[in-house]
């Protein structure tokens, strides 16, 4: 497990990170969410030793992260770049050796990865001859070639076409299933939503929330129900403890006004609403609305 412990960093007078702490657990995809300038990239750079922190520690399985430990990490920086004039396969194999693989192992891993990423036909082309999307795939290969023990990816999906997103997603999921902790940042909430198991939300250089996706949903999302009845649903407006946020004839979205939500008290609010609705006639739908990441995100920061 990777532990980030109370990390702070300033650039001049500007405090970019303020006591940042979170964990990245094995076998789980952890999404790192934050607006531009929130401190995602700075945090990742510190985790990889590209930047030093003013205070705080990063540990891997309880040990401080040294150069030797970092060599077994995989990193995809936010600003992409490999050697433009080097051949794709040569380049990825070289990076593999730099991370401690033997020449033979580096070559076989490179071939396997390029195969997985549908890039094998371009193996002997110079990187600069590839389209941006394919360069991005090569970048993913560069981060994965040495079978890293931990993956840190800064915006891995930006600039990818939908097919490439699927390909990369499949490859990353495979690594996580193999027990590799994967941390990736993104500002595309929909991608994170379908991909991650855990979430870390950062804003203004401080962690606002972290934990399992479902747990955060419970904690931060406002509980809501979509109610669809046979006739007009206007009576819901007069129901005590209920606020109507949307009303379109027979369809309404409701949230509780009280602190107990829908589930508190002797007779939970949602059950009372349902009974009332059934007593008034047909009930076509009574569906809890799962809060989107977008809502959690807005709520948390």
């Amino acid at each position, binding site marked *: 497990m990777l532990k980030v412990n109370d990390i702070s960093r300033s650039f001049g007078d500007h405090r970019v990170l303020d006591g940042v702490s979170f964990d990245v657990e094995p076998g789980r995809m952890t999404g790192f969410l934050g607006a531009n300038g929130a401190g995602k990239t700075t945090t990742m750079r510190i985790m990889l*030793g*590209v930047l030093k922190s003013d205070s705080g520690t990063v540990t891997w399985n309880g040990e401080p992260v040294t*150069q*030797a430990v970092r*060599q*077994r990490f995989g990193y995809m920086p936010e*600003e992409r770049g490999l050697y433009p004039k080097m051949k794709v396969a040569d380049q990825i194999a070289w*990076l593999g050796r*730099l991370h401690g693989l033997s020449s033979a192992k580096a070559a076989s891993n490179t071939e396997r990865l390029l195969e997985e990423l549908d890039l094998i036909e371009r193996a002997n082309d110079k990187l600069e001859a590839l389209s941006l999307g394919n360069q991005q795939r090569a970048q993913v290969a560069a981060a994965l070639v040495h079978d890293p023990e931990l993956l840190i990816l800064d915006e891995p999906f930006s600039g990818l076409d939908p097919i490439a997103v699927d390909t990369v997603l499949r490859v990353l999921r495979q690594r996580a299933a193999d027990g590799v902790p994967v941390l990736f940042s993104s500002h595309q909430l929909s991608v994170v939503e379908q991909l991650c198991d855990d979430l870390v939300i950062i804003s203004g250089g401080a962690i606002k929330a972290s934990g399992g996706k479902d747990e955060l949903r419970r904690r931060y999302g406002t509980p809501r129900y979509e109610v669809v009845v046979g006739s007009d649903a206007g009576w819901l407006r007069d129901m005590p403890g209920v606020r109507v946020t949307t009303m379109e004839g027979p369809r309404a979205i409701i949230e509780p006004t009280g602190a107990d939500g829908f589930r508190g008290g002797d007779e939970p609010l949602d059950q009372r609403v349902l009974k009332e609705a059934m007593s008034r006639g047909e009930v076509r739908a009574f569906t809890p609305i799962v809060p989107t990441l977008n809502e959690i995100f807005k709520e948390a920061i």
Partner: protein
Amino acid sequence: MTEVQVRSSEKGQDTGGVSFMQATWLVAEREIKSFLQTKGFWIGLGAIVVGIFAASILPSVFGGGETKVAAVGPQVSQTLEAADFDVRQAGDVAQARDLVRSEEVEAAVVPDTTGQSQTGLRVVALESPPSDLMAVLGSPPPVDVLDPGDVGDGEKQLVIMVFALVFMMFAMGGTAIAQSTVTEKQTRVVEILVSTLPVKALLAGKIVGHTLLTLGQVVVLAIVAPVALQAGGNDELLTVILPALGWFVPFLVFGFVLLSSMWAVAGSLVSRQEDLGSTMGLVMMLVFGPYMAIIFLQDNETAMTVMSYIPFTAALAMPVRMFTGEAQLWEPFVALGIAAVTIVVITSIATRIYTGSLLQTGGKVKLSRAWSSASD
């Protein structure tokens, strides 16, 4: 975290990862391979080889094939003219010696008055008499050498020109270091590199790689130069130049390593290839300044002596002084020692600036900022 980073290289060996040495070598290997794949390298090397041949063959082509000889006495003149020499009549021995001294002729054949000579002739030469002349004269006559151990101006020019070609290689190798550093910054591949290996290994790898490349070219040069000299009929020059050529190699390597870390700094201070010119200027001056100084001050013995100890000019000045026989045998060792100390000092300063500026992008990094950010 600083403490952690200092120990990193030893840790690398403990855990069976990539050690500092291995990382350095991997970087060097990549530098060498990618430099060998550029057209510019082969064009440059080709130009140097062609240049050496041109420098050694053309003077003998344009200077006339016949050896110029002064002769005293009509009988000697006839013998020499019959053997296809370009003969200048001299009135007496003194006049013949003057012609030799002023290099209007390569040697003079004069009557022997001491009785040492079997043929009754003596040969006067500036340094060593032309072998073709000696062959014509039968049993070798005694030779008077006017200026022993010294080499003619033309030949000295030739040597300096060869050295200038070598400095062209310096500029090429140096520019390549600076360019590869900027490429890494510009493409941001540097982030992957820095997260994987110690910055010092990255710098060391570049220096090792390009030093080996330059050394390789020097070796090519050292093989080509004698061949070219022979082709140009400068055989006798060969025996003089060979020991100096031997000395040239260590001086070149020291000279290159001295500058290489500065080239890397020049590359690390900017973020785009286009801005490289602004930072490379100073280093380029350290390459061409010494060369110009030696061209202009080559006849000033004091200046040459001083320059042969200053590390930046030593790579040129000391081999030239060895070549002309002005330097004592112990002198190059002292000069190399001074150069070694300077390399250590300059490389450690350069390493710090390089470390501090490598990850700073956006415009040109100020030296002072690079220096202080390395300690963060």
